[in-house]
């Protein structure tokens, strides 16, 4: 057994690509080795800005020898056939064995495939991996033709056990594998040799490299919090930024700096975004003032002056950035106080999509739709319309031009400055939501009206020009918009039949198709919540299924009923009834749908089924009328016993034509009753 250590050392790898690359390295290497017969106990990967590292523990020293037996031609077969067989097996006549096989004698070959040493296999698999690495974007450099994410600098590849360390003999385009690596670019740039993973890990730390991304993240976060806490401040959490920053440094050094007084009145979103996007700074809030007053930057070096120069430089760059932001903010406030009319007018000249007109045109449609939706979501129609008209005005502001991700957030500030109500301002901010499956859903009625109108207009518009999502392509984020509508309706418990909303904006013939798209998105949404796709199908087939809240209620009830023993078995009974009935209808060319009469019942169980159906119908009909699906489904499930007993005791295809017809008509009642609750033909089981 040996341990394998691989390090691919390169120029700086983009932060976001490091972790997936490390995973790919592990997957490709271990799969390749196992395929070649080289098994191992454990594999782990590490990544920094300059290295991808893989450790494989307890790797076999060689792949096992494999014995294979191959059956050849019959004894006495033409010479050509025998020679061909010998060539294929790499053997001579003397190696063959003759065995009895059925009625004749046949040649057999025993082939031994000797195992190969680990170093040979590793060299082969690593070379293939390097040459075919799945980087999302890769490059060449110098005169070579090798591709990597940035120029590769060196390859470390060693096998070690207690007795010895050996370098795996490997050369890829002039890069010869070695046992050497380098430390931190500035603090420990010299090369050094390592003898195994532990040695590598220890020496790297001594050479100012923290190998583990989690450890770098933890160090940054802990140090940032400690420094902030000492001043009574708190660092604003940002997991994405933390991961990114940890990918930019091999030896994180946390420095906290101050934001100049003159910028402290900028909205916190502006400070946060500007610092994060341009400088990759964390924001630090003062809980006493509720403002962001400081920043944390992460350097990659322990500077001789404890970071004073670095901090001063960063502060200077930040001041220049924030001076720009302040300039935009002040210009924008003048426009906002003037009522934002100029911004709205400017949107006349902004194309939303070349076949869907301008942003201003789109806003007019959204406003009309928001007004129309308002009563259904409990909003004041005038206010909903007004909110929709100003909700996107901030797209013309200088701040949003500079930081598009602040759209909506700035809208809220500007709407308030323009003297609009808090409800309208809130709608400006939240009408883009929810942006994903875990994003918060607006609940304020005016916001809900605008958010729904915005998304419905997007969907009907793109449907009308036939720009629908296909496969993985969804350039206009229409799936997200549909999911947003679904979540807005369901999480706000809205009764909002979609069908007529999908035609109101000229979708025309696309409406049905669009409703189907919604239902597909709903299926995905509900599947994540544990509701079976066939259950949803069974409910979609029912009337009013464009009322998503109703549809979900029905699906939940059906799933609940199917989870009971009676419910589960009822499906069997229903299907049996349905199959027998359909078969008979097909053979006889008639429809058995009416006239089952208890007076022709010959058997007691038949009578019981008649009675059970009467009782179930009496419960189901009023329950369905009040959308009490649980009661209806429970009543349906009570049919299970009588149906099972019926099939147990009764032969449907009785000799008497009258009895047969009556029984088929009885099964038809079973079908009708069950289908009045949900389309059970769609349920699997």
């Amino acid at each position, binding site marked *: 057994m040996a341990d394998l250590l691989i390090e691919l050392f390169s120029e700086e790898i983009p932060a976001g690509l490091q972790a997936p690359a490390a995973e790919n390295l592990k997957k490709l290497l271990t799969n390749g080795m196992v395929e070649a017969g080289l098994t191992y106990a454990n594999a782990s990967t590490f990544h920094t800005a300059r290295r991808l590292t893989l450790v494989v523990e307890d790797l076999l020293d060689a792949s096992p020898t494999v014995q294979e037996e191959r059956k050849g031609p019959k004894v006495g077969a033409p010479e050509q056939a025998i020679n061909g067989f010998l060539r294929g097996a790499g053997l001579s006549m003397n190696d063959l064995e003759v065995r009895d096989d059925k009625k004749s004698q046949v040649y057999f070959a025993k082939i031994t495939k000797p195992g190969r040493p680990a170093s040979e296999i590793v060299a082969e698999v690593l070379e293939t991996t390097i040459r075919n690495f799945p980087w999302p974007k890769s490059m*060449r450099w*110098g005169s070579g033709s090798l591709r990597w994410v940035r120029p590769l600098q060196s390859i470390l590849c060693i096998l070690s056990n207690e007795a010895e360390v050996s370098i795996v003999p490997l050369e890829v385009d002039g890069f010869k594998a070695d046992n050497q690596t380098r430390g931190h670019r500035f603090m420990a740039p010299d090369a050094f040799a390592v003898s195994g993973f532990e040695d590598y890990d220890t020496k790297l730390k001594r050479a100012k490299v923290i190998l583990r991304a989690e450890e770098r993240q933890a160090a940054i976060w802990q140090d940032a919090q400690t420094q902030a806490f000492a001043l009574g401040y708190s660092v604003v959490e940002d997991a994405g930024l933390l991961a990114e920053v940890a990918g930019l440094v091999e030896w994180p050094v946390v420095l906290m700096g101050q934001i100049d007084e003159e910028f402290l009145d900028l909205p916190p979103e502006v400070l946060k975004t500007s610092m994060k996007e341009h400088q990759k700074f964390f924001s630090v809030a003062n809980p006493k003032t509720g403002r962001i007053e400081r920043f944390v930057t992460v350097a990659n*070096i322990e*500077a001789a002056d404890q970071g004073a120069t670095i901090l001063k430089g960063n502060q200077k760059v930040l001041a220049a950035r924030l001076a720009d932001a302040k300039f935009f903010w002040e210009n924008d406030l003048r426009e906002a106080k003037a009522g934002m009319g100029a911004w709205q007018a400017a949107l006349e000249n902004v194309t939303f999509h070349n076949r869907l007109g301008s942003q201003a045109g789109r806003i007019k449609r959204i406003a009309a739709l928001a007004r129309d939706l308002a009563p259904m979501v409990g909003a004041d129609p005038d206010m909903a319309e007004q909110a929709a008209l100003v909700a996107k005005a901030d797209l013309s502001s200088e701040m949003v031009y500079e930081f598009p991700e602040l759209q909506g957030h700035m809208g809220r500030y500007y709407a308030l400055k323009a003297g609009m109500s808090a409800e309208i301002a809130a709608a400006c901010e939240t009408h883009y939501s929810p942006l994903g499956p875990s994003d918060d859903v607006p609940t304020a009625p005016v916001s809900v009206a605008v958010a729904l109108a915005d998304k419905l207009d997007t969907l009907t518009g793109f449907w009308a020009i036939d720009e629908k999502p296909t496969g993985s392509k969804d350039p206009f984020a229409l799936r997200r918009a549909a999911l947003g509508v679904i979540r807005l309706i369901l999480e706000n418990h809205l009764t909002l039949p979609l069908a007529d909303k999908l035609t109101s904006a000229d979708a025309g013939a696309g409406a049905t198709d669009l409703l189907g798209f919604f239902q597909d998105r709903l299926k995905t949404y509900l599947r994540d919540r544990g509701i079976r796709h066939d259950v949803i199908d069974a409910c979609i087939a029912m009337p009013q299924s464009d009322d998503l809240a109703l549809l979900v209620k029905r699906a939940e009830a059906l799933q609940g009923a199917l989870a009971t023993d009676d419910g589960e078995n009822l499906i069997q009974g229903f299907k049996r009834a349905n199959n027998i009935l359909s078969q008979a209808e097909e053979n006889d060319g008639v429809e058995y749908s009416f006239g089952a009469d208890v007076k022709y019942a010959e058997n007691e169980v038949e009578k019981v089924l008649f009675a059970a159906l009467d009782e179930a119908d009496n419960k189901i009909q009023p329950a369905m009328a009040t959308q009490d699906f649980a009661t209806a489904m429970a009543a349906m499930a009570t049919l299970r016993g009588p149906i099972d007993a019926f099939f147990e005791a009764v032969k449907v295809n009785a000799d008497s034509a009258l009895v047969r017809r009556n029984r088929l008509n009885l099964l038809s009642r079973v079908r009708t009753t069950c289908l009045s609750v949900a389309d059970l033909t769609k349920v699997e089981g």
Partner: protein
Amino acid sequence: MSTPKSFQEIILRLQTYWAEQGCAILQPYDMEVGAGTFHPATTLRALGSKPWAAAYVQPSRRPTDGRYGENPNRLQHYYQYQVLIKPSPPNLQELYLGSLKAIGIDMTLHDIRFVEDDWESPTLGAWGLGWEVWCDGMEVSQFTYFQQVGGHDCHPISGELTYGLERLAMYVLGVDHVMNMPFNDPSAPIALTYGEIFRQTEEEYARWNFDVANTEVLLRQFEEAEAECETILAQEAVDPKTGKRIIMAHPAYDQCIKASHMFNLLDARGVISVTERQAYIGRVRSLATKCADAFVQTSAAGAA
């Protein structure tokens, strides 16, 4: 390395440093360009198989960035320092860091970072991968391995370094407003600041760029340059007068540069709409691509 005293000292030190690394120190190209990349010593020489190593200062013009000399670091005319080495040497990062040391950046005090940046020039039909280089959070250079230029895959690959000289110098010299930056030695008998040399021209050009430049003339010049570029490239490879094979890639490329600058001026005048913008960029790219097609057939590109 001591701290330099002036803007020009930083330029001189870069010149000396890259000369010591074996680069040919070229002079600026004598046409209006938006960036050092447009110099044929970069755009055209990044193509073809012949090794190349050049460094130069390139005055660059971005009419839309004019601020009448008032903004602390925005100018419509500024300087870039450009290095292009083909094939890119394996130690190009170290060579680059050496240049920062040469201009007085102490690596034990500063935080230098290579931050992902995928460079792309839609007008030149070029792209590459590399980084923005940050010094204490400020972008001081762009570092790019060219993968494609003028629609051609590069082979071998060039390493390109671009330094924004004013910004870098302001940082090294500790100056807050570009116009206050000493251009020559501040203790010289006639000490000149950047502002004394350029404030007036920034004002003059800002006014002309934004409000006065005759858009009809600019438009006509764009079209003339475009037509001339096409005409040049349509000529037979063999010159009927000398009987020599002379493909006129450089004169054609001059017209491409001219068209690109006319487009920038039109843009600054605000007469190009969002949709038209893409179309103009496409027209310049088409010229750049044709010039590249022509250059790769010449001996400077290593063609027989």
